[in-house]
């Protein structure tokens, strides 16, 4: 008598999660390797040292305590912007307006910080951050409502509103709130007690890194463990199914964009309170747009965003130094980053999974 052959155990959900994580890591790795190869080609074709450049970047970004701290400093706004984009992208809302929310949030934080100078340390910092989050969220409320209730393409509206935010904040610090006696267009400095603690003093690395880490944890928890997170994921995976399930789709879309704007506003606010201590006209090198790349690379996984933002921060930090210590221009980092962006949604690596994210 043959024993009934035991059928292989059914794969558990955690098995699928591991598979998905591996696939994500694989495709992200392929994208990155492709971009690195392209950058190496550019360096080689223009007669610059290939390995020397990469080695120098790695050494400056990771080789010393200050270097490491600066890498974390560069990564902080990127983590926040990546999370901001992830919240709405995961719901299938292609919101590219985080850059605008970042500018207005930063201005709100700066204004609160130089206006309510009589407040104590914690109340003032809290007020600044709340102002940044609220203003960021309100800024995206308009395109959110237009998308949810009138079906206005959110890509176009948020893209356009970024430029409005840039111009409006530029107006504010050039005219009504211009700091007296300074050549550049910037707001007055925030009160002493509103400035965030520096973590590793020679570096500007500050407590906003902790905020970014806490928010990563919060978004991961929200996606994985709450009803809201499940609704967002359902909406992102299959809007029609979400509607049939009774998920209030328009309201959820608005909510995700408000969250996105709030986190984007915090990214701007934390830069003001932690690094610049004032609002500087046009201070963002495009963090809100980098957030798009980062969340797409990480497939909207908060921990993936953390890792990807750290890698991007490393590139930025290392790139700043190669300009000083070699003849290679810093723009090689822009080229590398652009190559990543170009490749990130291309269907090269795992075609079956690509469809879900684009």
């Amino acid at each position, binding site marked *: 008598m043959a024993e009934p052959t035991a059928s292989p155990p059914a794969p558990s959900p955690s098995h699928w999660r591991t598979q998905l994580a591996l696939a994500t890591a694989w495709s992200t790795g392929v994208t990155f390797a492709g971009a690195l190869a392209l950058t190496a080609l*550019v360096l080689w074709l*223009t007669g*610059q040292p290939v390995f020397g450049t990469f080695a120098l970047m790695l050494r400056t970004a990771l080789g010393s305590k200050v270097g490491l701290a600066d890498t974390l400093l560069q990564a902080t706004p990127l983590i926040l912007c990546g999370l901001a984009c992830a919240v709405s992208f995961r719901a299938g809302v*292609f919101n*590219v307006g985080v850059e605008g929310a970042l500018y207005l949030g930063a201005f709100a934080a700066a204004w609160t910080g130089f206006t309510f100078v009589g407040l104590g340390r914690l109340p003032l910092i809290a007020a600044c951050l709340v102002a940044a989050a609220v203003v960021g969220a309100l800024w995206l409320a*308009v*395109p959110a409502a*237009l998308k949810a209730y*009138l*079906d*206005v*393409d959110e*890509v*176009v*509206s948020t*893209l*356009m*509103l970024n*430029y*409005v935010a840039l*111009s*409006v904040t*530029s*107006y504010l610090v*050039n*005219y009504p709130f211009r700091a007296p006696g300074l050549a550049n267009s910037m707001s007055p400095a925030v009160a002493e007690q509103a400035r965030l603690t520096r973590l590793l003093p020679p570096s500007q690395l500050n407590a906003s890194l902790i905020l970014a880490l806490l928010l990563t944890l919060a978004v991961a928890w929200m996606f994985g463990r709450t009803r809201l997170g499940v609704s967002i994921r359902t909406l992102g995976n299959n809007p029609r199914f979400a509607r049939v399930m009774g998920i209030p789709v328009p309201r959820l879309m608005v909510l995700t964009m408000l969250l996105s704007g709030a986190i984007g506003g915090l990214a701007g606010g934390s830069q003001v309170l932690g690094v610049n201590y004032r609002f500087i006209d046009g201070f963002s090198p495009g963090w809100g*747009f980098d957030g*798009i*790349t980062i969340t*797409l690379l990480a497939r909207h996984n908060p921990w993936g965003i953390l890792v990807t933002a750290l890698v991007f921060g490393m590139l930025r930090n290392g790139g700043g130094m190669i300009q000083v210590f070699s*003849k290679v*221009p810093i*723009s*090689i*980092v*822009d*080229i590398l*980053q*652009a*190559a*990543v*962006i*170009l*490749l*990130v*949604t*291309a*269907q*090269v690596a795992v075609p079956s999974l*690509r469809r879900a994210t*684009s």
Partner: protein
Amino acid sequence: MNDLVSVVHAALRMSTPIVYAALGGLIAEGAGVVNIGIEGIMLAGAFVCLVAAWLSGSLWLAALAAGAAGAVLSVLFALLAVRMRANPVVVGLGLNGLVAGGIAYIMQVYFKVRGAFAPPGVTGLPRWDLGPLAKVPFLGPVLSGHTPLVYLAGVTAVATWLILYRTRFGLWLRAAGEEPEAARAAGIPVPRVQTLALVLCGVITAIGGIQLSLGDLTRFNEGMTSGRGFIALAAYYFGQRQPGPTVAAAGLFGFFQALQIRLQSTGYPPQLVQTLPYLIVVLTLSLIAWRRLAIQRRWQRAALQRYRTDAPGH
């Protein structure tokens, strides 16, 4: 009066690159591929034509080089966005970054300059004097004394309309944009049509970039397009994706730019005028969407009404 003449004259000049990019973007959008890479393509056109004019001394070769640069970048765009089905918005962002970074890199490695590149001995585009026509009051001084590119912009607009609405390619292009599935079923090679549309878009946009580096000035500044690609995007959305209204919108936005420069000297904040094109577009899109919704509702009500009166048993 003299003020008005000079502002409108400047408006024509300043709207020219926007007109080209808007027509290019319109063609790509018509084929169903939104191309925000026009910002970078315009920048590449501006840079390449200046370098080519400096190296060859010929403006014709410069224009050819700019067009070729636009075509090459567009092929890259099409390869990623059409063939490899990448998200076109993301590819556009990447292309803009690649061009900006690539130009800065080239300037620093080969020309040893940063920020701006102004090679000596390059003559810019000629200014055409309209002869006796320039004597016509108001219109004469406004229309006369521009670079050939300004006049060619009108020709390009007409050509774009002809291509889109009077050729088989244009029909295919619009079909690919509106109903790609149906177009594929009808035997239209959708990817090839989209690729061609993108290349056309790239060439036109890059030509528009020439106005920046050989028309208004004979130098190149990093980031000299300063958002004109996005204003062009705004122009064709405001123009509801029709060539005529798009050119009018681009003209209006060029007028805003000229006005803003004029107002700057009177101390008026230029930033507020800068927001106008973008605000107008968001408003237009909202109005269009609202009207569409209203029409839909009316149809639904009418259908319900018919059902109530016609259906048996009621």
